[in-house]
């Protein structure tokens, strides 16, 4: 009897575990990892999905699901090189990647911690690049693809507003250096190669300080 009960208990634990995996609970992967060696996402991206701006861990909450899913695939295959994310993404199954992407895309955008405002000169430079571009170099404005206020557009153009400045700067350098080359149509590699270090620093600081959702009067 006893041994039967133990066997049944063991069985139900095993079943529960496999149910857990099958239901693809994005939230539990985010909080506890996947039980197969992948660490909880929140360890770096924070419990609310807001990231850790100072460390350059980006906000995931509210990003497009298809975009998040693609990044996981690209980390795993090396089109986006990152020593932390490569093993994480590789350790997630196809279904787990879907679940995590779905989970974060639906999280509300948390209120970002206050960030240092860029200097007046930097703000002017960044605003100009964000809203006008620099067409003398063939450089479109950021918002021509990332949308008014940099709030993001569709599945392929993620939000810049309210994102970690360190993260934004790191990404622009990664595009320049080829560590990141998973952009559709090479749009970002082309753009990043037309930016100076000063441009990049200014843009990162400026977008980090912009509201993540569109305010009524964001000027064209």
């Amino acid at each position: 009897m006893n041994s039967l009960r133990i066997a049944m208990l063991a069985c139900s634990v095993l079943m529960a575990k496999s149910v857990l995996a099958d239901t693809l609970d994005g939230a539990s992967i985010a909080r506890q990892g996947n039980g197969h060696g992948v660490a909880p996402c929140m360890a770096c991206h924070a419990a609310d999905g807001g990231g850790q701006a100072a460390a350059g861990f980006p906000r995931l909450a509210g990003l497009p699901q298809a975009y998040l899913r693609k990044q996981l695939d690209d980390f795993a295959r090396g089109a986006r090189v990152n020593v932390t994310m490569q093993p994480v993404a590789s350790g997630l199954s196809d279904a787990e990647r879907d679940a995590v992407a779905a989970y974060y895309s639906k999280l509300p955008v948390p209120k970002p911690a206050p960030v240092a405002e860029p200097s007046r000169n930097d703000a002017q430079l960044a605003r100009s690049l964000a809203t006008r571009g620099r067409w003398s170099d063939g450089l479109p404005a950021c918002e021509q693809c990332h949308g008014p206020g940099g709030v993001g557009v569709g599945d392929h153009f993620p939000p810049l507003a309210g994102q970690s400045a360190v993260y934004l700067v790191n990404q622009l350098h990664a595009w320049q250096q080829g560590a990141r080359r998973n952009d559709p149509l090479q749009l970002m590699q082309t753009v990043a190669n037309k930016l100076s270090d000063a441009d990049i620093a200014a843009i990162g600081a400026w977008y980090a300080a912009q509201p993540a959702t569109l305010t009524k009067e964001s000027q064209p």
Partner: protein
Amino acid sequence: MMRWRWIWLAAPLALAACHPAEQQGVSPASHAPAATSSAPHATNGFEPPPESSIPADEFGKQIALGRQIFTDTGHYAKAYVGNALNCANCHLDAGRLAHSAPMWGAYPMYPAYRSKNHHVNTFAERLQGCFQYSMNGKAPPLGDDVLVALEAYAYWMSKGEPIGVAPAGHGYPKLPRPTQAPDYVRGETVFKRDCALCHGDNGQGQRVAERTVFPPLWGAQSFNWGAGMERLDNAAGFIKANMPLGRGNTLTDQDAWDVAYYMNAHERPQDPRFKGSIAETRKAYHDTPDSLYGIAVNGKVLGQGVAVP
């Protein structure tokens, strides 16, 4: 005929239009397939004054308003706009960019006789045409604030240019005729590969917060059959020089012609000069190999128009 320019891909644009008929050549760079990155946007030609030089006075206010109309047309010229486009969608960099029908390429060329309407047009009348066709809306009356502001903006931008001399980089580049006749199936392949990412699988464009980010290329919210971008040569020239946004001059000429054909082989709002039948309208306004109006593509005669909500 209409030579309006169009809207394509990018983002902002405006209405204006630009050049009247016959833009001449000035084709830029490459007729050869440039392999990769962007070729010369620069022309060594005219450089419009910086935005910061708009004067801080009453005249400057109109110039600044003209710029706002240009980039957010549906908001600042709402009464005259019937679609989701902005002037700056076809006239990139708020009408400043060479090879993208810049305002400084058009302003010094008016008044001009236009075969499109068989009389001498003022610049203001040319702007009216943009609203009727490219914006699928209504012509603002002459003297209307919208036209005054746009003309002030174009005038300011053209400071120092000779009058009556087409500057290098005006209009859209004239591409050599393609080796193979433009083709729907090849154009579809180009569209899916290089355009649909931003403009959508059905050319519908993308909006955020009621603002157009990527303009619709056909359908009810795009330019109508009377617009200049309906012409394959105009569309191919614009696309070649400017698309994908930020990567101009990377498509081959053949790709540009094919995808222009694909775009313009879709329905869009009727030509407002419709004469009762597609055949009559083609005869009157579209009698050129560069227009697909009235031509059967995939078994359907184009020029039916689409209902505009």
